[in-house]
């Protein structure tokens, strides 16, 4: 007969160890990425970010990694973990079911050093789609106290407002890999987020911006952006809904 372990017993499970392979690369003097292996002990709740910080603390303090919130909120710690773009602070070693954990910088971003990548293009494309409410009377006047929205109106875009600008979707996107001018799934999902907001009046402006030879039409329905998004944003769906406006299926 099986027994349910008590809390005390569960917490006493001996820690196990894995090999953490970290990509090291400095574009200033390295010609290619090199991997360094470290043996790390972990508990069931240890995240990949914690393991990397452990390596930094005890073995190699030179490893470059960007992080801040450690709770999937700031969008800083995106990297390729065992081949898939993920947030290091939101990925537990135990969930990867592997004795070797390989961490590499995100694809489709220029590398600053090791695991840290440049976010300029992500921020530029995000900025390009005007990620804010465009409204004639932004200032609340006299008796208006708020811009009311029904739950149905909120439902239209709320999922898309969860984006933390981590760039994982852009890292997974095959078009981003070859088209250096492509606006990318992150910015397109945000274009939809504002276009679908009942308080916004900037639909025509935004649709014009993304209706470009490197805009929305360069999405070929791979869907990998939505598979890797840690916040459930579903950029691929946002892109198809935006296409609906442009093809006249939505208004």
């Amino acid at each position, binding site marked *: 007969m099986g027994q349910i372990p008590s809390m005390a017993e569960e917490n006493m499970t001996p820690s196990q160890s894995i090999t953490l392979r970290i990509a090291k690369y400095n574009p200033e003097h390295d010609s290619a990425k090199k991997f360094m292996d470290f043996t790390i002990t972990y508990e069931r709740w240890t995240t990949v970010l914690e393991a990397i910080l452990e390596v930094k603390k005890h073995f190699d303090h030179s490893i470059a990694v960007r992080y801040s919130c450690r709770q999937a909120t700031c969008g800083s710690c995106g990297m390729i973990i065992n081949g898939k773009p993920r947030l290091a602070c939101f990925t537990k070693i135990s969930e990867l079911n592997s004795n070797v954990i390989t961490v590499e910088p995100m694809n489709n971003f220029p590398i600053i050093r090791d695991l840290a990548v440049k976010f300029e293009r992500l921020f530029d494309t995000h900025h390009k789609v005007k990620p804010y409410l465009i409204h004639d009377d932004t200032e609340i006047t006299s008796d208006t106290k708020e811009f009311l929205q029904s739950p149905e109106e909120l439902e239209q875009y709320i999922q898309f407002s969860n984006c933390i600008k981590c760039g994982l979707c852009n890292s997974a996107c095959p078009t981003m890999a070859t088209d250096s001018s*492509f606006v990318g799934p992150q910015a397109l999902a945000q274009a939809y987020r504002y276009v679908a907001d009942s308080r916004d009046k900037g639909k025509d402006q935004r649709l014009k911006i993304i*209706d*470009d*030879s490197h*805009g929305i*039409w*360069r999405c070929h329905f791979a869907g990998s952006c939505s598979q890797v998004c840690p916040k459930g944003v579903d950029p691929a769906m946002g892109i198809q809904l935006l296409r609906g406006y442009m*093809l006249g299926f939505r208004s």
Partner: protein
Amino acid sequence: MRESIIMKIHYGTALAAVSLVAVHILMRLTQGFSESLQYGSVIANYKFLPYAGMLEIILILLSIHGFNGLRVILLELKQGKTYEKTVSYCCIAAMIALIAYGSRTIIMVNTGMI
């Protein structure tokens, strides 16, 4: 031209081609596939104007669709103002050339040059 208009044409030509190519294949079923390619029957098909007209339309639709598709692939492969302009103009030129060459065959048959 706005990219959305180009892509509407791209999707439209694909949809139209699906139905016309279906008619084209059905017409081929009226005889054996090997007979289809015999000299006499090819000439006879071209001389049957409604059918030749449909083949001409398929030629135009798929040339537009195919060369625009090629343009898209090339634009995603490499970027740059001159490169992109060259790609666009070359694709339009190739599209026109292919349509002209295909139409020439149909016209030659129907004007008795063959």
